[in-house]
Structures are given as C-alpha cells and as structure tokens.
C-alpha cells in the first residue's frame, strides 16, 4: 500500500516539478532574455504566442501523461493484490 501511495505521489511531484521548470520559469526567461521577448512569429511576439496559445496544449499533454502513469501504477497494484481479476483495471 505504501508503495502505491509513494509511486502516485512521485508521479504528482514530477508533474509539479515539470510545471515549475517550464511554466514557472517563463517569467524569469522573459525578464532575463530580451531576445525571447523581441522574437516574432508571423508578426506575433513570442511571449504572446507562448502565453496565449502554446501553454494550453502543454498543460493538457502533461495531464495526459500523468493519467497514463498513475493508471499503470494502479493496474500493477491490482495485479499484486488480486492476481485473479487484474484484467478489469
């Protein structure tokens, strides 16, 4: 049981850390590197494109990866506890 909780917590913390290092680092990046803020894509400044559009699919992707991970952990756990009916997870 403890190992299941630990693996779920690890998955959650991985997502949180990824967020911190990606989205969380954006303000500092914008502040530190003028080249990023001055970069244009099709006339749209990079910060607007990143903050206004690109962040959202990124968040969805993170959530999707996380769900796959924790459901696999739950399946493994189910197999461990109830080997006879592990196929219904």
């Amino acid at each position, binding site marked *: *049981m403890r190992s299941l*909780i630990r693996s779920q917590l690890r998955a959650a913390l991985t997502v949180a850390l990824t*967020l911190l290092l990606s989205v969380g680092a954006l303000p500092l990046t914008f502040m530190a590197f003028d080249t990023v803020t001055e970069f244009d894509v099709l006339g749209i400044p990079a910060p607007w494109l990143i903050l206004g559009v690109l962040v959202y699919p990124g968040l969805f992707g993170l*959530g999707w990866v996380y769900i796959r991970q924790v*459901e696999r952990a739950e399946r493994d756990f*189910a197999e461990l506890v109830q080997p006879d009916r592990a196929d219904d997870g």
Partner: protein
Amino acid sequence: MNSTYGIVAVALVALLTLGIGAIGLRFSRTTSDFYVASRSVSPLWNSSAIGGEYLSAASFLGVAGLVLAYGADMLWYPIGWTTGYLMLLVFVAAPLRRSGAYTIPDFAQVRLQSMRVRQVASVLVVAVGWLYLMPQFQGAGLTLRTVTGAPTWVGTVLVGAIVVINVVSGGMRSITFVQAFQYWLKLTALLIPVFFLVHSWTDDGRPSPVAPDDWFTPFGGTDGPGLYLTYSVMVATFLGTMGLPHVVVRFYTNPDGRAARRTTLIVLALLGTFYLLPTVYGVLGRIYASDLVTSGRSDTVVLELPSRMLGGTTGEILAALLTAGAFAAFLSTSSGITMSIAGVIGQGLTRIERGTRLPLSTITALRIAAAGGILVPLIMALSAERIAVANSVTFAFALAASTFCPLLVLGIWWRGLTAAGAIAGMLAGGLCAGLAPVLTLAWRPDGWLGVLLGQPAAWSVPIGFGLMVGVSLLTRSSVPGNVSRTMVRLHTPEHIAVDRRD
C-alpha cells in the same frame, strides 16, 4: 447601443436556465440527488458542467479587460486558472473522490475525525464563496448597465434572484444540466463574434495595437513589482483552484476515482480552448476601444467591440450573443458557489435543528441556507467599490490556496497531519489571505505594502503550509488512529476489495 437585442438575450438565458432547472427538478427527489446528482454523471457531461461552472465573469469579461488595460502580463490569469486544474488532477482528484466526501468540511472530518476542523473548514467555505460571488454580482450589474443602460443594481439583484430560485427549486441535478449547457453557450458566444471581428480587422488592413512598450512585453517596467505580482498570481491560481468549494463538490458526481481523473483531463481541454479567445478580444480592444481604459470600463470591452467594429444589426446581434454568454457566466458560477455555500450552511442548520427539535428537513435547511447565503455577497456587491473583476476573484483563489490547498494536499499525502495542525494552518493562512483584501479595499496602502496585500498568495500560502506541518509535528501524538485505513481508502482503486470502513 440598441438595448432590445440585449434585453432579449438576457431574458432568454434566464428563462433557459430556469427551464432546464425545472426539467432537472423532476429527477431530483432525494437528498443525495439534491446535493450531488446521485453520483451518476458521465465524464463529458461532468467536465462540461465543471467548465460551465468555472468560467465566471472573470474569465468571460475580466481577462479581455485586463489584457486591454495591462497587456502581456495579464495572460497569466487564464494560464493559472487552467493550471489549477492540472494541480487538482495530480494531487487531489482521484483520492478526493475516493474519500466519499461531499464537501471540504466532510473531507476534513473523514480524514481527521474532528468536529472542530469541520467547523473551521465550513466557515472558510462560506468566506471563499462570498469573496467569489461578489465580483460575479458586480459584473452582472456592469453588463446590464452597458447593454441596456439600467442602473447597476438591477443586474446584480436579477442574477441573485435567478440563482436563488434555481438552487432552491432544483438542486444539484438540475445544476449539472444547466452548467453543462452554459459551458457550450459561453464558448459559442465568444467564438462566433471572433470570426466577424477578425474579418473586419483584416478588411481594415490589420492595424497593430497602439500601446506603450510595457503593454507588449512582460515586465515592461523591470524595476517594478511585476515579477512578484506574476508569481503571486501563479501561486494563488495554481493552488487555489483545488480549494474552491464549487469545484470540489463536482468531483463527488463522478462514479469513481478513475472517472474523476478523466473528467479533469477533459476540463483541461475545455478550458484551454476557451481561454484562447479572451486574448483576441483584449488585443482587438487595444486597437478599437482603448478609450475604455482611461474611462475605467475595460471590463466591458468584450461587450463593446461588436458595435464599435461592425455596427448595424450584425453588431447588435453579436453584442446580444456576448451578453447572453456573460449572463450564462454569472448565473452558472453563482449557482455553483451558492449551492456549495448552501450545502455547508444547510448541514450546519440541520445539526443545530437536532438540538432544538425544530421541524426542519435536510432539503428545507438547504433551501433556507441558499437564500440566506446569497444575501451577504449581494450586499457586498451593492455597497463595495468596484475593482476589476479578474483581480477581485484572485482574492478568493488566494484564500482557498492558503487554507484548503494545504488541508487537501497534506491530508491526502501525509500521514502526520493532525487536527490541531490543520486548524492552525487554516486559521493563519485564512487570516492572512482574508484580511489582505479587506485592508486593500478599506485603506489602499501604497508601495510594496500595497503590492503584498494586493496579491497575498505568495506569502500567505507558505504560512498556511508551514503552520499546518509545524503544529502537526508538535502534536504528533494526536494523529488520528485510523489514519492507515483512511489512506488505504483514499488511494486504492474502487474495484479492489479493501476494508473501506471509517
């Protein structure tokens, strides 16, 4: 602006909301129905409902207004409101569903076996709810004034009345239908005008927004408190979402923990799609309606753009559509919050009733609570000075992030949490994040003090977490005896047979 279309739009949304609510009423008979739709809502319905409930006046009107006024830095608000769901997904969604709790106070009681914790959490639910309701009501007043010229209080009172009728008559079952419908209404209402507006902008030769440099780039004025503000908004919104009472209660309507996760993932997609749009309004607003900033009415930019850019009947019809969307936003969010406030007050009332032997059924208590619970924010909305909708919603997020976020995260993942620790953390975090908006509104301090009070989350959340952990460690001997069993219940998939008794 010709007000006929606008009035028709508002009337239609109000009637549809009450109408769908009335249909739902036929299905909701038991108390369990009334509170949480008997836990039988599918992930897509449920996520539309969550989206409908979550996208408030702040999202529909506020974001565009902030982008119009302040530019790139404001894009953090919608990002934060979406990321909040990701945090909720990874830390809270499935275990909270598996806890079997209706509300945060229920969860606190299940986990910590303490009535005192339950009471503190109940008071905080009401406080967060009121802080969240006030800007919704103010936004409604503003919208109706913009569209029809009616005095501000009319819209405020109108929304309050519809919400009470809806909650009192139908309960959660009908609210799930209403909310799901309103997500799609809001998305459509914002999406269709965008095509017309962008087309008209292209015809105009695609003029660029005229604005000072710091509008275009994040932290234009690097020496200011911009970086602190951005990070504080991030802390409040990332961590506050999981503690909003109307968000949490929705997870109970999922059949199991797995469905709760899937629901949350769909919500991420729905929110991400929606939040692409307000930015477009904000930027176009900078080109065509920048005078709204100087006149302090930037929150109305979404409603004003069609008549300014297109004019004629097309403009009026699109403006009416946007008005309908805005009203859907006020109604859905306010209904959801009112419902959860009513749930908490109602549970309190029935408990008091047991002592005094008043003949009060659970559902009657819930109805009285709904009507009563809405009065305070209504009065606040009518009397308080208006600040930007999106800003004032952030106070509610900061309060939730400083109190319920530590309670939920530590309660779910840490065996060592004690009742005393939870109370200490919630009281301290709640006092810090709760007094900040009061002081800001009452006294408007300048300089860094004003900045710190205006966005308290960056310091109040660590205080809440710190005290909760610290006091729990000091009272280690009072860790609830059944903690291991509770943990098993929170984390084990439902289909595995384990001992789930309390």
